[in-house]
Every structure is written in C-alpha cells, then in structure tokens.
C-alpha cells in the first residue's frame, strides 16, 4: 500500500508514522508537504500525523485545517478513501469539518502524557476492521487539548461513529479513567461513511515490543488489509 503522511509546519509525529509504516510494517509511505495542492498519484491512504501544527496557536489544528493540501484530502475522503488522524491530526480533521465535534482543553488544564486503555467499538472502519469489537488496546496519549466535545455525542454513538473510548483494563467505561474529560470517554470518532477516522492516542507509539507495547500496530495492519481488499 502507498500511504501519504501530511507534513505541516510543526508536525512532529510525521517521522514516527513513517517509521512504523515503512520499517515495522514494510509498506510504502511518503510525506506530503502542506503547500502541495494534490496528493501523489496512487495514494491508497492518508495519515494526518500528530504534533503541534503551527504551534497549536489560536486553536490546535485550526490554522493547518486551511492548508492547500486539505482540499485535496477532502476530495480524497469524498471518494471513500481512508483518512486517519492521530492526535493533532484528529484536531485538524475536526477543524476542517471532515469529522464532527471539536477538541477542547483537557479538564486537568495540563498536558497529559501516559498510557491509557481504549476500547474498540462502533462501525467497522478501515483502521479497526481487523480488531474485534470490545478489544482493549493500551496506547500512549500526549496532548493538552484532547477533550472531545460535540453537539450530540449519544447520536454519534448510535450511528456507530464512536470508534474508541477510554476504559479500564477490563474494558469498563468509567469517569476515573477519562484522561481529559471527553464526552462519553470518547477517544476516537469516524465520519458517517466510516472512511475518515481519528483518535487522540498514538497507535504509532505502541507498535514495537522494545517500546513496551505493540497493540497499536493493529490499526495499521487493519488499514493494510482494507487497502489490499479494496484494490
């Protein structure tokens, strides 16, 4: 598969995503500069990586959402092609209207970097199809603006658009394990079609045993499966 990894000024998980896709998963991946107006020919999937695009100034993801490349991503998404947002990528996709809701300041008012448990649910997406519903993944978070807020979270859930929720080791959803005050412990959502999905935790940081966790790799393996099937 050929993955395009967007690169904005201030992106800083772009190298990490490239590392996991090319070195761990042994797939093709390349950066796409924010000033470009088109994605490379033959792009199978797009990843909007984490970081601090434009320093998170004004609002996380707000300025990057208006980059030239985002119009190309909109068209790409409209064709039902897979688009994954991670952390700042989630914020950018919300700000650009490709995903519902917004990410507000953590209730703790602090940057939170640690491991959390998230439960996979909702409709199957290109990034979770290979992960059994209800499975718990242990993934790192590292964000200051991760509190998911949207008009009607319940409705989102009913439509199967809630894909990851913060939970305890056993999969239980409690306030105690909600690291940022997100509505309904929401950690990741997708659009109605399911081809655009984003989450605050970092699967790319949990994809190698030497770093302690490798459950996150399933997200990328799932994507590979999806791309192979649909091509």
């Amino acid at each position, binding site marked *: 598969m050929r993955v395009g990894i967007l690169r904005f000024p201030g992106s800083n998980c772009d190298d990490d995503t490239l590392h996991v896709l090319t070195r761990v998963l042994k797939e093709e991946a390349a950066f796409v500069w924010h000033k470009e107006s088109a994605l490379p020919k033959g792009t199978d999937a797009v990843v909007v990586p*984490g970081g601090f695009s434009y320093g998170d100034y004004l609002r996380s993801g707000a300025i990057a959402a208006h980059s030239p490349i985002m119009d190309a991503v909109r068209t790409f998404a409209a064709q039902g092609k897979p688009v994954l947002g991670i952390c700042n990528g989630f914020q950018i996709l919300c700000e650009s209207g490709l995903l519902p809701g917004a990410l507000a300041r953590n209730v703790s008012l602090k940057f939170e970097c640690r491991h959390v448990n998230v439960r996979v649910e909702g409709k199957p997406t290109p990034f979770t199809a290979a992960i059994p519903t209800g499975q718990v993944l242990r993934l790192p978070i590292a964000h200051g603006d991760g509190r998911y807020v949207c008009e009607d979270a319940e409705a989102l859930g009913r439509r199967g658009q809630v894909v990851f929720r913060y939970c305890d080791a056993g999969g239980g959803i409690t306030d105690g394990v909600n690291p940022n005050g997100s509505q309904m412990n929401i950690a990741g959502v997708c659009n109605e079609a399911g081809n655009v999905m984003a989450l605050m935790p970092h699967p790319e940081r949990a994809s190698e045993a030497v770093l302690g966790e490798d459950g996150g790799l399933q997200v990328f393996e799932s994507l590979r499966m999806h791309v192979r099937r649909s091509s």
Partner: protein
Amino acid sequence: MNIEPEVTREVGKAHGLSDSEYEEMLRILDGRTPTFTELGLFMSAWSEHCSYKSSRIHLRNLPTTGPVVVHGPGENAGVIDIGDGQVAVFKMESHNHPSFVEPYQGAATGVGGILRDVFTMGARPVANLNALRFGPPSHPKTAYLVSGVVAGIGGYGNSVGVPTVGGDVYFDECYAGNILVNAFTLGIANKDGIFLGQAAGVGNNLLYFGAKTGRDGIHGASLLASAEFDATSDEKRPTVQVGDPFTEKLLLEATLELMSVKGLLVGIQDMGAAGLTSSSIEMAARAGNGVELDLDRVPRREPGMTAYEIMLSESQERMLAVVEKGREAEALAILEKWDLDAAFIGTVTTTGRVVLKADGKVVADVPAAQLAEGLKYDRPRKKPEDREKLAGVDPLALPVPGDLGATVLRILASPNVASKEWVYRQYDHMVRVGTVLGPGAADAAVIRVLRPDGRPKGLGLVVDCNSRFCFLDPYEGARLAVAECARNLACTGVRPLAVTDCLNFASPERPETMWEFAESIRGLAEACRALGTPVVSGNVSFYNETEGKGIYPTPMIGMVGLLEDPTKAVGQAFRGPGDVVALLGAQPAADLGGSEYLKVVHGQVAGRAPKLDLDAAKRLVELLIGLADRRLLRSAHDLSEGGLAVAAAECAISGAAAIGAELKLPSGDLPEAAKLFGESPSRALVSFAPEQQQEVIEAAKQAGVPLQVLGKTGGGKLKLGDVELTVEALSEAWKTGFARVLA
C-alpha cells in the same frame, strides 16, 4: 538614527567593567575610547557568563580527552563517538535567573537554547533531560515556580517534538531565593556531518535566519546607563524573552535541511547569550578571520533599534551561518520553504576584526581574537568556617524514631524522594518512538537509536547531583554525583561514556564560593578520570544567591552511555513474585550525614558526606553491565536518597503492578536506622530468577563486589527486617507525596 552616548569610566562601571577591565579595553583599542556599541561588545564578551573569567583556570583541570571524544569543550556542545559512523552530541545549560523572574518563559527559553546548541552542530535532538531545584514546598512561591517551570519545559519541548525522558527535582531552603533550572539535550549526527561555529572562507557571506530581532533580554544595567543619553529610553526597558517553540521547530528542520546540502554551509552558530555579539565574535575568532556586518540588514521586530541593542538583543530562535560564496540563493530558497525570516548581513574578512556598520557609518571595530580570548582571574579561595562544626554532628547521637515503619512512609512522601510523575506526565516522553526506559521506569533513561542499517542500539542518559553532600564536602559531593550517574546508567545495563556538567554556584567574588568551586572541580576531575568518562561539554552558572545567601554548591552532572542491544535494558521495578532479591555492594559506615533521613526526621543538613571508594564504584558498574548483558537481571535499582528502605519500596511499587517482598536487613553491626536509611554509595538492589542465583553470585565474586541475598519478591507487603508495610501504604505515600506539596 543612532544616538551613540559618549563612553566614560563611569559608563563602563555601569556596564559592569571594573577599572582594570576598563584599562584593558582601552589597551586592546590602542588607547582609543570605545564607542557605546563597542562598550556593549566588551561588556558582553567579558561577562562571567560568556568569558568564564573566574572558572577557566579551574576548568582546565578536567579530563576532556579519551577514545570516544570527537569534540570536547569549546564547541557549542560535546561530541562523542557511538560507533557505526554515528556521534552523540550533548550539553547542559542553566536558565536559573530568567526562570525565577518568569518561570514559564524562563524555563521554556532555557530548553530552546540548549536545543539550538545541539542542532547548530548538525545533530538532530532526540532526548531532553531537566534538573530542577526549588525552595521548600512550604515557601509561598514554590508551588507557583514549580508549576510554571514544569509547564514551560513541557510547553517548549513537547511542541518541538523532542521527548523529555528524565531528570531530577529537589527542594531545599537554599534554593528559595534562587531556583535552578538546568536543561540537557542530546542529539544524534553522522560523524562526517558535524558543523562548527566558524566564519571560514574569506569573502563568504553571513546569513542571519530565524526570528526577527527585538529588544528582548538586553542587559538591564547597561540600559540604565544609556537611558540618560536617550529620549526614547522608555521603549528600551529590557523585556522578558518569550519562547516560540513553533519557530524553533521550523529553525531545526530548516537548519538540518541546509546542512544536508553538500558544501552549502561553511559554519554556523546559534545566537544564544549576548546574541549577535558572541556569535559573530566567536565565529570570527575560531576561524582566525574577521567579519563585517551591516546592522541595517538585520531583520528587526521593533522600529528605532540602535546598533547597541541589535548586537546585545537576546531574542530567541535565531541563527548565524556562513554560506559558501555563490550559493546564497540555494540557502534562501530553503528558508523560504520553511517560512523563516532570512537576510545576508555581512561577510568574512581577513582583518581579524569585527567591524559593525549602521546607517553606513562604522559603529564598532574590535579585534575578534582578543575579545573571544576574554579575561582570566584566579580569585581568592577560603574554606567556610561552619563546615567543621557541621562535620562534628553525629546523626545517630540524635533520638531515633520509635516507629521506623512510619519513618519509611514519611521519607517516601518527602517530595525529594516521592514519585515525580506529576512532573513528567506533563512532558511528552514518547515522541520520536525511541523511549525504551522513560521517566520513572529506571535509574536512567534508555532510548533507542537506529544504526545506518536500521538495526537498533541503545543510549542511556541521566542527570544527578546531591547538593547536600556537596554542601558538607564539595570534593566528595562532586565525586559522589559522578559515581551516582555512572551507577544509574549501569543499573539499566548501559556503559557510561562521557559527561557534561552544569556548575551552579554562588558569587565567585566570595572566597568561600571559589573554594567550593575548586573543591568540586577537583572531585569531578578525579571521579571522571577514574570512571573513564571525560567531560565533553558544560556550563558554569555563578551568582546564584539572593541577599548574600548563596545556594549549596550544585555541580549538576549529566552522563551518557551506550547499550549495544536495547532489548537488554533493565528497569528498576520488581517483575514478578518468586524472584531472588540481593544487595550488591557494602555499607562501610552508618552514612546518615546529609541524608534524607536526617533532613526529614531532624530537619538538619549536617554530618559528614559518605566517603566514596572509586574502585568499589567502578567494580559495581562493571558487574551491573555484565549481568545485564548476560540477561541475568530482572530488575536493578541504585541506593541513593533514603537508602535501602526507599530503594526496596520503589522496586516494589514503581512497576505496572505492585509486588511486595520479604527481605532481611543486611548483616553487620550497624544500627537498624543506618541499615534502613544510610546512603553509602556504590550499592544496588537487584532481583533475578532463582535458577540464576548461582551464576549471579559467581559473577559478583569474580567482579569483587560483595553480594548478600536479602530475600524473595512476592505478596502484598514489603518486609524489611522488623519493618512491615503494605504496598498500598507505600504507594499512597510515594505516589501522592509530590502533588501534595503543590496543593
């Protein structure tokens, strides 16, 4: 508009130049009275911070060479060989005073500065550490300072995308009026891709790039002096430097991209302390050339800035590079791509002089080499009186608490010992997918670095300094700090390679301070020689005092080492029930002098610092590295503050799941309190599988390190001789101790 006030001896004084320094300046200028801008150059170049005038004659006693050293002190950062054609570039810097004035921005710009020191040499920063010292938690300003400093370090490092993988935090009365914020950065480069800060190649053009220049952080005293000469002085109040991590990130990527183009850059240096002044003077001097700058071409943020202000501005996120003649457009194109301001502001000359022009007029013309050479003082030294008296205090002569279990909990909850998670949770310690052992996981951080062929190797890094020991005995204290760093690395399986330091002291004009400084250097040099870890970079921070009260001597040590196979890294927490727990190393004395026990229980910093046996220290380091390499260890944790009791408790509760243990106290006729809380160096608590007990014991015998099996892991309790505590009680004390002081 360049109002150049006239320079007199008095103006010189206001700029911090003594009479003799003023004379020296006139001599260098062949008797000519300097222009106001020139005075600014001398003042900056001869400041303690830039010239090391009080410390140089001592620093030269440090070992700075060795098989791994590629570039020692003198460059922007130290460079060591880590094999495979790769080098590690690292340095530690203080940002104490700015952080006390404005904790968030002071700490943030401290991180920004040390990052630039590393990537200006061609290395990509891959890990940060930070060492912090604050006044007592009870002090009204402490909570505000801690919150601000930690948020600032995170706010900057997280945004640039460099993981903060470790550090060190202490609280003590001596830092109440003068906190310490020491930031460490480590970067990786190819051995043939190192860049130096030199203005080589006569005729080459000097490229300024990064942020615009504003009136940030211009020396306060000098401004007062200039004020009376200048109507617009109101707008010239020194302004606090504000960090812009976003611009830093662009600067980092743009700099590395410029460097990746063969032969484009001839030399480069970041604009740190004294901004354009030190970068231009140092670059010219290093190459034995001169430079001529047209200050009208410097990108400015504010109108009406004088030559003096432009040269002394400490605006952040700026670089000065020498571009190969004829390739200017190539360089500008790359900076355009990264949306950075850039301008060619001068050229390299043969004259050996730094010549500055503003409004077409020459406003400064000084010899680079002589300014860079700076001054050298041998200041008087005198041993402080109180130390003998303090040494006379015998901690065991003081009443010992009846309930030692409760004492264990009190010490675990002391913010110096308690878990620092409240701090490092605010730092991104996982970005760059290289963190093998992060904060809280071990005595040192271990990161993965990819070799050119993609295979992994490990680097270990740690900072430490027990300033109570340094206060009681600066010579022993410095030796102990180096030894603890080496021990911390060895506990994770890492072989120590080299050292950077950040020497925080009070006023060098006080003989007592200079005695402490000289003693520390003596200890530092001796330990680094014995352990084979040369000092490749460092920083001296004097005048850490308020109202004549100085801080404890605090020679912060940063140490870096190598672990060929990162999958062999060893953590500090017990891994499961049924493992054998053993103590490596001997406790020759009670060693409660300057201990956490003495401070927590009796509120005193007194007694004698532990005596370090460097051979024993080296033997333990070798043993630990060997055991880890043979994968014999399940866990290893060094004994430091709080002694055996704290080490055992941390092994039990710092893992994902708490695991108790049933341990006896080491044999010997020391009192129970000494066995529990004594801080004798060169000891570590390790655990291993029962079936490997014989191998481990044999290895220890071979290495000549005493080993005592204390017991087995397992159960919900930690038993230490007669002391028995549930892991819940231990966790409660240790995990909430830090946050509680900030409430």
